[in-house]
């Protein structure tokens, strides 16, 4: 017996975004080897060009007709994959723009490797979102994880970063073990690794929890749910998130918090909400419980944090909880709301990490809540931007975060799970507390060492001369000028956060299309 499978040009066109990112990664490595060290900062341009090329690929695929499936049903370029790709590309592009200046400040000399690894991680995220086969989901996951392990440990000589990379590796590959065992059992129960085959099997066979393939499938679903819950950092599988997010370089944290989540949520949608939809009764309870635990626990734990990076890490756990509502509902409206939420979360969360990055000094100094005291008088523009991002994360009307929360809570009510809405709203109330705490520190608490009266009318133009030398040093230390590209990234994130809040309709219709709604 022989297998013949011809790969056509159309197959390659279906993975155009992945190819563009991959080529950009290889180009970065090649050019890095050829140019002198002082020019290496310019490598970010190749990365951004790669993201733009991938974006062009997505637009081309949106316009193309015909079957979206490619490579014998291994990957697809359906609207769900394309929407996820857009979100991942937005996060990658913004993270790339935030990096120049910051990574030099952290003492990184190997900038070429940094940008190449970021592009490879983005390739893995896009590939995972496009996978329609358990094998490809695993490969996409590993292609995104391996560069991220290295990126987390990237800052030279920073013990925190090495610790972050180590923890991420150990816990993530531990979770991969569960994920793979789950996949193996699902393969054993259904005889297929492609999601269409799994769906066909469970739709045509009656399942019993005690006989036949039933117990194996149940075990497989449970293990797969555990593995993916690790990846989206759902409570109780969240322990790695704060440590890894805090220790990693901030652009990496921004990319990880959005891109990995988006890819893993698409995998959850494809496996549970689509392929295993016929046996929804057997897995819905797990997702329901995970959603509640993550929403409530994430918000409560975030409220106790004193480091802003760590606070944002716990806030990202809480947001994973709101997103899990969409999975637990299993309705198309729930999936559409989840996708819109993820897009909104991408701009506001990367934006918030962008401001943290602009204020951060070497080795994670300058990320404590105390360092943000009186920020409004020292860096008014940055403080205002962070305030907008935090209001959006809290869900204040007029921002993307409000529309996203509204959509997902409305989907929960119409999907017959009003209790998830009630718990979600209560959890967001706790969320207000810690987001406002940061804003309070920036606007209403005078900076340390600075006399209150002086802080009240501190004006950067005239007050520098009158301050004592300690304060001047302090101001100089926190006054790292914002790189042009980082400013551009923050401006884009601001436009996205406010734009998606005021004109949500186009993106909502795109999300509904991705979820298969008219």
């Amino acid at each position, binding site marked *: 017996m022989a297998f013949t499978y011809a790969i056509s040009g159309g197959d390659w066109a279906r993975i155009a975004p992945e190819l563009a990112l991959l080529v950009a990664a290889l180009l970065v490595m090649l050019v890095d080897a050829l140019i002198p060290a002082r020019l290496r900062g310019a490598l970010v341009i190749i990365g951004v060009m790669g993201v733009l090329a991938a974006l062009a690929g997505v637009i081309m695929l949106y316009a193309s007709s015909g079957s979206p499936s490619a490579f014998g049903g291994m990957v697809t370029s359906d609207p769900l994959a394309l929407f996820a790709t857009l979100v991942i590309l937005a996060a990658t592009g913004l993270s790339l723009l935030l990096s120049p200046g910051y990574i030099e400040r952290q003492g990184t000399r190997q900038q070429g490797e940094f940008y190449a690894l970021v592009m490879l991680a983005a390739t893995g995220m896009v590939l995972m979102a496009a996978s329609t086969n358990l094998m490809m989901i695993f490969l996409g996951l590993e292609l995104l994880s391996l560069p991220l392990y290295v990126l987390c440990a990237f800052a030279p000589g920073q013990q925190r970063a090495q610790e972050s990379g*180590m*923890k991420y590796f150990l816990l993530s590959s*531990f979770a*991969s*073990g569960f994920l793979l065992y789950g996949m193996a059992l699902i393969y*054993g129960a259904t005889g297929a*690794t492609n999601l269409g085959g799994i769906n066909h099997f469970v739709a045509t066979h009656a399942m019993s929890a005690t006989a036949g393939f039933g117990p194996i499938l149940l075990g497989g679903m449970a293990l797969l749910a555990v593995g993916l819950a690790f990846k989206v950092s759902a409570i109780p599988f969240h322990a790695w998130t704060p*440590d890894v997010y805090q220790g990693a370089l901030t652009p990496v944290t921004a990319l990880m918090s959005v891109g990995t989540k988006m890819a893993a949520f698409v995998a959850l949608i494809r496996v549970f909400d689509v392929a295993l939809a016929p046996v929804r009764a057997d897995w819905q309870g797990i997702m329901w419980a995970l959603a509640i635990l993550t929403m409530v626990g994430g918000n409560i734990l975030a409220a106790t944090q004193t480091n802003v990076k760590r606070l944002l890490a716990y806030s990202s756990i809480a947001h994973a909880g709101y997103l899990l509502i969409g999975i637990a509902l299993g309705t198309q409206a729930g999936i559409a709301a989840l996708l819109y939420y993820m897009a909104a979360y991408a701009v506001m969360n990367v934006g918030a990490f962008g401001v943290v990055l602009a204020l951060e000094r070497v080795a994670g100094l300058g990320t404590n809540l105390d360092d943000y005291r009186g920020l409004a008088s020292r860096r008014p523009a940055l403080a205002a931007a962070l305030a907008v991002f935090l209001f959006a994360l809290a869900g204040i009307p007029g921002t993307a975060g409000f529309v996203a929360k509204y959509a997902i809570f409305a989907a929960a009510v119409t999907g017959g799970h009003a209790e998830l809405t009630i718990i979600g709203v209560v959890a967001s109330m706790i969320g207000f507390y810690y987001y406002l705490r940061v804003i309070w520190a920036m606007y209403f608490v005078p900076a340390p060492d600075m006399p209150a009266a002086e802080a009240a009318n501190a004006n950067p133009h005239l007050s520098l001369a009158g301050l004592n030398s300690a304060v001047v040093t302090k101001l100089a230390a926190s006054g790292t000028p914002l790189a042009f590209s980082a400013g551009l990234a923050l401006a884009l994130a601001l436009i996205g956060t406010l734009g998606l809040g005021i004109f949500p309709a186009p993106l909502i219709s795109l999300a509904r299309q991705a979820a298969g709604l008219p």
Partner: protein
Amino acid sequence: MLLSLNSFLVLGALLFCIGLFGALSKRNAISVLMGIEIMLNAVNITLVAFSSAFQHSAHGARLSGQVFAVFIITVAAAEAAVALATIIAIYRRKSSVDVTEINMMKW
């Protein structure tokens, strides 16, 4: 004596539990890594066992398991390379690879 599918599945499950116990109980980072590798190999045994049980099904069903196992072996090798590099970097700084001592960040 013919070994049935169940024997292999039980072997896979036992190995997975041994690996899990090793990954959770060991303090040396390299031992934890070995525990994780045992978990992955338990998955490989399970996949190949299922694959041979599907020998009367279509090619696709039968070969998927074996191909999957090959992918897992390859990826596990890449993971081990990254992990050992990280462990060496940490060892150079701290002269220790005890995971309980890697604790700069907490709560």
